[in-house]
C-alpha cells in the first residue's frame, strides 16, 4: 500500500491544488489563509514521506506522461533533493503561521497566500526536476512569484529594491538559458543523467568550460556569490518580514542547490579548473559579505549581508569536493536555513516592540522581553558558530574537510569570517538587546512581555519552533550528519543517479 503512494509528485500536487483553491476564493482572505495553511502543512508531511521513502528505497524517479527518459521530463528525488524539499516544507509552514499576524490585511487581500503557494511550487519543482530546461522553467515560476511578493504592498523601498532584484534575476535567467543552449549544442541532451554520460564521453573537454561559466554566472547571481551579490542586500530587507524571511531562508539556497547539482553531476570533466574557481569565489563571498555586514546599522541589512557570507561556506563545501566537505555543505545548508530565517523572524518580533529596525533606535529588549532574547541567542550564536550550537558543527566539518584536502588558506578565511560574524551578532545583541532604549523612543513601546505574546502569539510560536529545531540539530547532530553523508555519497557517485533515471 505504502509503495503505491507517488511520493515524488505528491509535494507538487498539494501546493498546486492549494493554489487553485486560493484563486477560487480570491475575495476571502480568511479562507485563503486556511487553505494555504492546510496546503503547506500537507506539503510538509509529503516532504517527510518523500524523505522516508527515498531513504528506504533509494532514488525515486517519475517519468512524467510515461515518456521514458531522456525523451520526456523526469522528476527525480535523491536524498539531497528530498532533504531540501523537507526543509522547504518546514520553512513554508513556519512562515505561513508567522504571516497570520505579520502580513497586513491589505497585502492578504492582494493575494499573498496564492503567490506564496505558487512560489513554493516553483522551489519544490526546482529541487525535484531532472532536466536542465525544466529546471529553468521551475526557476522562472519561482522568480516571477517572488517578484510579486517583493513588491506586494507597493511601498517605496520595496519598489526600489524590486527594480534591482527583477533586472538582475532576468539577466541571470538569460545566462542560464544561454548555457542550456551551448550545452545542447555540444551534447544534444537536456536530461541531467544523459548529460552526465554525454559529458564524460565528450571528446573535446575544453569546450565544456564555456557552458560551465554560463551556469556559474547564472546560478551565481541567484545564489548571491561574490561579486554578483549586490542585489541581495538592496532588496531582501525591503518587504515585510514574512516575505523577506522566506526569501532569505530559501531562494538563494535554491541557487546553491542548482550549483551543487550541476557541479557534482554534470560539470565534473575538469574539477581542477571549475572547482578552484568555485573555491576562490567562496572565499571572497564569505569575506566581503561579512565585511559588508560590519558596516551596517540596520537589523535586517546586517542579516542580509550575512546571507551572502554564509553562502560562501556552502560553496566552499562544494568546491572542496570530498564526501566530507559535501556532507558539511548540506549540513550547513540546513542549519543556515533554520538559523537565518529565525533571525529574520526575531527581527520582526523586535520591531513590534517600538516599530524600528534601526539599531540606534532599538534597545532594552533583554530587560523587557526575555523570551525574545533567548530565541535570538540560540539563533545568533548558532549562526556565529559557538559550540555546541549547530553552526559550530557545520563549520567544524567544513574546516576538517579543508584540512584533509590541504586547503589551509580557505580554512583560515572561514575561521576569520566566523569571528567577524560573532562581531556583528554581538553588535546587534549589544545595541538592541542589552543597552537601554533611547529616551525619545520609549513612548513608542506598545507591549510588555505578556501582551506581546498575547497579541502576536503566532509570530512568537513560529520563532520558538525554528529555535527548537536549531537546538535539535545542535544537540543531536549525528542524525543529520549521517543523513548528509549519505546524500553526499550519492552526489559524488553520479552513476547511482544515472542508473536510477536511465535503467539499462
Amino acid at each position: 500500500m505504502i509503495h503505491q503512494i507517488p511520493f515524488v509528485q505528491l509535494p507538487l500536487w498539494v501546493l498546486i491544488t492549494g493554489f487553485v483553491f486560493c484563486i477560487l476564493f480570491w475575495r476571502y482572505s480568511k479562507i485563503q489563509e486556511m487553505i494555504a495553511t492546510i496546503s503547506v502543512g500537507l506539503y510538509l508531511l509529503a516532504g517527510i514521506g518523500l524523505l522516508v521513502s527515498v531513504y528506504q528505497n533509494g532514488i525515486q524517479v517519475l517519468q512524467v506522461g510515461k515518456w521514458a527518459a531522456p525523451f520526456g521530463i523526469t522528476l527525480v528525488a535523491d536524498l539531497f533533493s528530498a532533504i531540501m524539499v523537507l526543509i522547504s516544507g518546514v520553512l513554508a509552514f513556519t512562515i505561513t503561521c508567522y504571516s497570520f499576524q505579520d502580513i497586513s490585511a491589505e497585502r492578504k487581500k492582494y493575494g499573498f497566500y496564492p503567490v506564496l503557494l505558487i512560489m513554493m511550487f516553483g522551489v519544490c519543482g526546482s529541487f525535484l526536476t531532472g532536466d536542465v530546461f525544466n529546471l529553468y522553467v521551475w526557476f522562472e515560476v519561482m522568480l516571477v512569484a517572488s517578484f510579486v511578493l517583493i513588491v506586494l504592498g507597493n511601498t517605496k523601498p520595496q519598489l526600489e529594491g524590486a527594480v534591482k532584484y527583477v533586472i538582475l534575476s532576468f539577466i541571470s535567467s538569460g545566462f542560464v538559458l544561454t548555457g542550456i543552449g551551448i550545452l545542447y549544442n555540444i551534447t544534444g541532451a537536456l536530461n541531467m543523467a544523459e548529460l552526465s554520460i554525454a559529458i564524460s564521453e565528450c571528446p573535446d573537454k575544453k569546450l565544456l568550460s564555456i557552458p560551465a561559466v554560463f551556469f556559474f554566472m547564472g546560478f551565481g547571481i541567484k545564489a548571491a556569490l561574490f561579486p554578483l551579490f549586490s542585489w541581495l542586500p538592496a532588496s531582501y530587507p525591503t518587504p515585510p518580514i514574512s516575505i523577506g524571511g522566506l526569501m532569505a531562508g530559501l531562494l538563494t539556497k535554491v541557487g546553491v542547490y542548482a550549483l551543487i547539482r550541476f557541479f557534482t553531476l554534470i560539470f565534473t570533466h575538469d574539477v581542477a579548473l571549475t572547482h578552484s574557481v568555485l573555491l576562490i569565489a567562496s572565499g571572497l563571498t564569505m569575506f566581503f559579505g561579512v565585511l559588508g555586514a560590519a558596516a551596517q546599522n540596520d537589523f535586517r541589512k546586517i542579516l542580509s549581508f550575512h546571507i551572502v557570507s554564509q553562502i560562501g561556506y556552502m560553496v566552499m563545501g562544494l568546491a572542496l569536493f570530498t564526501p566530507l566537505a559535501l556532507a558539511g555543505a548540506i549540513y550547513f545548508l540546513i542549519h543556515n536555513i533554520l538559523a537565518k530565517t529565525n533571525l529574520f523572524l526575531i527581527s520582526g518580533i523586535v520591531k513590534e516592540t517600538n516599530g524600528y529596525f534601526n539599531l540606534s533606535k532599538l534597545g532594552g529588549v533583554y530587560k523587557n522581553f526575555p523570551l525574545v532574547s533567548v530565541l535570538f541567542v540560540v539563533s545568533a550564536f548558532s549562526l556565529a558558530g559557538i559550540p555546541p550550537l549547530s553552526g559550530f558543527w557545520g563549520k567544524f566539518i567544513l574546516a576538517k574537510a579543508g584540512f584533509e584536502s590541504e586547503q589551509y588558506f580557505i580554512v583560515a578565511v572561514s575561521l576569520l569570517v566566523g569571528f567577524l560574524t560573532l562581531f556583528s551578532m554581538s553588535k546587534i545583541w549589544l545595541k538592541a538587546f542589552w543597552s537601554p532604549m533611547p529616551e525619545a523612543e520609549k513612548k513608542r513601546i506598545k507591549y510588555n512581555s505578556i501582551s506581546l505574546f498575547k497579541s502576536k502569539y503566532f509570530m512568537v510560536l513560529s520563532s520558538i519552533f525554528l529555535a527548537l529545531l536549531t537546538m535539535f540539530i545542535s544537540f543531536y547532530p549525528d542524525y543529520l550528519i549521517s543523513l548528509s553523508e549519505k546524500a553526499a555519497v550519492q552526489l559524488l557517485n553520479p552513476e547511482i543517479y544515472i542508473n536510477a533515471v536511465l535503467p539499462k
Partner: protein
Amino acid sequence: MNLIISLILGILFTASVFLMFQKSFFKLIIGVILFGYATILFLFAVGGLTKNAPPLISENGMEIEKMADPLPQALTLTAIVISIGVQVFVIVLLRKVHADVGTEDLDDLNATDRID
C-alpha cells in the same frame, strides 16, 4: 546564414548591454527586451539551423538529415512566453516606480543602499 545570425546576435547582445548600463528607465526597458530576444535567438541558433525543413517526419519517412530539430523550437517557444511575461512585469514595475518615487534616473534609486 550562420554568419549573419552570429552578427545579429553580437549586435543584439552589445546593444542590450549598452542600453542596460544607461541611467534612463526607458533605455533599461529596451535593453531588457533586447537581452531577452538575444538569448532566445541564441538558444535557437545554437540548437542548429536547418533551412527549408519542417520539424516533422513524413508518413513515408523523410531522411533524418533534412528534418529540422524540433527541440530548440519547443525550447524557444517556452522561453519567449516566459521572457514576455517578465518584460511586461518590468515595464509595469518601472512605471509604478516612476509614479511613486518620481524619478527617471536609475542612480536616484539608492535609498535601499544607504547606511542609516
